């Protein structure tokens, strides 16, 4: 079959699964007084539409920061504003100041879901397609298979279309950034990534690789001469983008400080809920949350994150090529996830281990279906495109069984949280293994097997 038809089929399948998942319930549906992330997004539309810019991040009589105060960078706020304008056109009740708190209706749900789909189609999906087309090795069949895998990735679909978030925007922008760098359009790449960063501060996880890659590239071109000019241009692009995004907040020095305070709430603890990272897992054995003071916790997490991220970044700095860059992205995000402060499980977006969160949202069925489909599909494709690894093959049933156990068995009364904690610890061990493995791969650069096959 021709390429265009295969790619469009992938896109259509991706879109259909997304919309099908959106039929199910969202975070905090029917659960006053706080509801969930869905209500948060709606509330931000209400706040940005009705209040002046300088009040968005501040605690005022009209803006109660305790009720889903804005805690993402300005670009999210602007996005909410645009959505609010559309909402106002369709039904003003949706963004009525104060009165629309906890507003839930079928048509509103449709509207919100539609906004996610729209940005997905606009930003994320084209990035994925271009990435698979230009940067995947292999035959066109393999490219299409990769595109399908990425587009059907359950984690993203479930979080964005089930739970309700706009991760596709920030991830999509970051992907455009990667695309830019890959095509040699450094300025465009930096612009895209800066926008991603200004949409969700979580993209900081990817920032170090971007920085090291670009810096390394400039150094390689010679710091006296071309490299320097390139560095200057990139820095200028980044600074101007930041300035434009933060412009409304630059009039008064208190503004950016408050925004930063909202973005990085060091007032909160080391972790919340069950997260598959070091601190949560360690807490099972040693109650570090209570044992250590907050300053010590901060210092410890900072130090360990730095420790794990340094080797990979330095390697990238010395050898700025695309392959190193991709690996560094993986390593950097894993390091941040495992060791940084106040991490949310959403940060990892990995399907198999987000069960606790999704079960809370009543999303068990779509989760099971999409995960199984994804596992089956990846396994099937993997076995066709590469030589199957026996251990890998047996691994997936093990995963499925453990998931099933979690769902069907009742935990013993003494340890009501037993299963979520076990899942978290299990995942943590996986991630620890991944970060060690990928670091080794990046640092040692084993001979890459020429695994191209003559298949079409």
């Amino acid at each position: 079959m021709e390429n265009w038809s295969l790619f469009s089929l992938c896109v259509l399948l991706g879109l259909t699964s997304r919309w099908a998942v959106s039929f199910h319930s969202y975070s905090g549906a029917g659960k006053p007084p706080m509801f969930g992330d869905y209500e948060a997004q709606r509330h931000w539309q209400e706040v940005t539409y009705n209040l002046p810019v300088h009040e968005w991040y501040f605690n005022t009589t009209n803006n109660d920061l305790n009720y889903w105060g804005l805690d993402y960078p300005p670009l999210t706020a602007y996005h909410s504003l645009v959505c609010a304008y559309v909402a106002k056109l369709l039904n003003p009740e949706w963004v009525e100041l104060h009165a629309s708190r906890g507003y839930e209706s079928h048509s509103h749900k449709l509207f919100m879901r539609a906004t996610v789909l729209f940005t997905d189609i606009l930003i994320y999906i084209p990035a994925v397609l271009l990435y698979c087309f230009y940067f995947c090795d292999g035959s066109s069949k393999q490219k299409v298979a990769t595109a399908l895998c990425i587009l059907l990735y359950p984690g993203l679909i479930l979080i964005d279309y089930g739970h309700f978030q706009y991760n596709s925007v920030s991830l999509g922008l970051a992907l455009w950034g990667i695309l830019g760098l890959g095509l040699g359009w450094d300025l465009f790449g930096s612009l895209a990534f800066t926008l991603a960063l200004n949409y969700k501060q979580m993209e900081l996880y990817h920032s170090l690789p971007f920085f090291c890659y670009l810096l390394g590239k400039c150094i390689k071109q010679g710091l006296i001469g071309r490299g320097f000019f390139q560095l200057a241009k990139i820095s200028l692009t980044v600074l101007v983008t930041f300035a434009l995004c933060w412009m409304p907040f630059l009039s008064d020095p208190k503004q950016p400080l408050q925004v930063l305070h909202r973005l990085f709430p060091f007032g909160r603890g080391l972790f919340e809920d069950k997260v598959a990272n070091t601190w949560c897992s360690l807490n099972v054995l040693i109650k570090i949350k209570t044992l250590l003071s907050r300053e010590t916790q901060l210092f410890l997490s900072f130090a360990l994150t730095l420790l794990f991220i340094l080797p990979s970044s330095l390697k990238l700095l010395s050898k700025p090529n695309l392959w190193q860059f991709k690996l560094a992205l993986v390593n950097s995000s894993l390091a941040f996830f495992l060791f940084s402060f106040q991490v949310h499980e959403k940060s990892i977006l990995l399907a198999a281990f987000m069960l606790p969160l999704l079960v809370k949202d009543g999303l068990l069925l779509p989760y099971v279906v999409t995960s199984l489909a994804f596992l089956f599909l990846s396994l099937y494709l993997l076995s066709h495109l590469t030589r199957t690894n026996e251990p890998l093959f047996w691994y997936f049933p093990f995963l499925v069984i453990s998931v099933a156990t979690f769902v069907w068995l009742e935990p013993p009364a003494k340890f009501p949280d037993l299963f979520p904690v076990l899942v978290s610890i299990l995942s943590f061990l996986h991630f620890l293994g991944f970060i060690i493995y990928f670091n080794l791969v990046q640092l040692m650069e084993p001979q890459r097997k020429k695994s191209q096959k003559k298949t079409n």
Partner: protein
Amino acid sequence: TVMAAPMTNDQSWFYALALGVSFLKCLLINAYHSTDFEVHRNWLALTHSLPVSQWYYEATSEWTLDYPPLFAWFEYGLSHIACFFDKEMLVVPNLNYASPATVLFQRLSVIVADVVFFYAVKEYYNGFLFGVLLLSIARHCQNRHFEGAFLFSVLLNLKHIYLYIAPAYGIYLLRCFCFTQSNADGSLQWRSFSVVRLVILGTIVLSTFAVSFGPFIALGQLPQVLSRLFPFKRGLCHAYWAPNIWALYNIADKAFSILGVKFRLLDINKLPKASMTGGLVQEFQHSVLPSVSPLATLVCTLLSILPALFKIWHRPNGARGFLRCLVICALGSFMFGWHVHEKAIMMAILPLSLLAVDSRKDAGIFLMLSVTSHYSLFPLLFTTQELPIKIFLMLLFTIFSLASLKTLFRKGGALLNPLEVTYLLGLIPLELICEFVYPLTVWQKTFPFLPLMLTSVYCALGVTYAFIRLYISLLTCSDTTKKTKMQ
């Protein structure tokens, strides 16, 4: 090392596809469910809680039992499983009961029934798709005629809509099976008639009917059952006209009446109040053209399929000829039948899809018919929530069939001629107008059914075109019996 016997490429794609479709259906469990949901819930309830003698008399709900007895037995069987999901759904007075467990059960039973579907597909050819009908066709193609006949009788007793294609079955079996041999040029050899075969076939068919209808005949309820199965009290057309001949007939009638009034040929007061586009299903009169009675539709249907039946009697073309006749019977009944539902077009499309992979002409006709009929089903899903799904799925199917058929028939030019392409592309503006533009205009309030009418008529043109082309291809096809691939 190799894990297991490696599956052939085709087979593995087939399983992947089957699984994928099932997954998608699981996801869509929460989607809008039509009155069909309540219909089946009611039937589950009444078969479960009432004695057999009451099944065809029960009328608490407006959705009375109007499928043949074997389907009733099927619902009865299902109801025993339904107990485990939610007992409340089986209480007859619980009209419109729809607890989450109920919804889940209904959807799951549909999905499980699909398993039969997929099994049948596997049997037909290493890699194709569809149901008990196809299993039956498969058995015929494999020369397991008794099984094929049995399966079809079962099918007929499950859903009497398959009566549409019974003539094709009957004639084909009579001609190809009861007459064991043909002459060299394909014509009938009268002396090869086998009484034994006829008797066995007859026994199979009659005994299936006996099992299904038996209890009701014993209770003397046959007239009641038949009146439920064939309710001619309903009108010529469904509330939403199926895209068949009568849609064109209706629109012509409307056009004439408007023109007639404009040119003072008719008196507007003397014309019957046409409420054809009204929501309820009722009897109504045509204004200018003669009214159509159920008998007239029956006659038209028979006339439309007679040439095809005669053709396969005269020169049967093996499995392919049988399939072609099947398609024409289904399509003819769709075109001229009384109170046809647009879903019935599926019966023509399924066998046609089998033909499409073997012949480029059939592929073209298949594309025309399938895209048109899929579009004609759009009005059935009218909620905003389902709008993206139906558009995505339609595009998915269209691109998939187009691309795969194109790859199959790579040499020899395009599958569709420019006129056909224009017609199909015309569906896009039609959808935009009906779904997006029209609701924003003033006419939405005064003529709310105009988009439905437009859709019916536009699709009816496509369906009629496909019908004519199919007939031409049947009547002009060569008489040589080709060996099919699956010997």
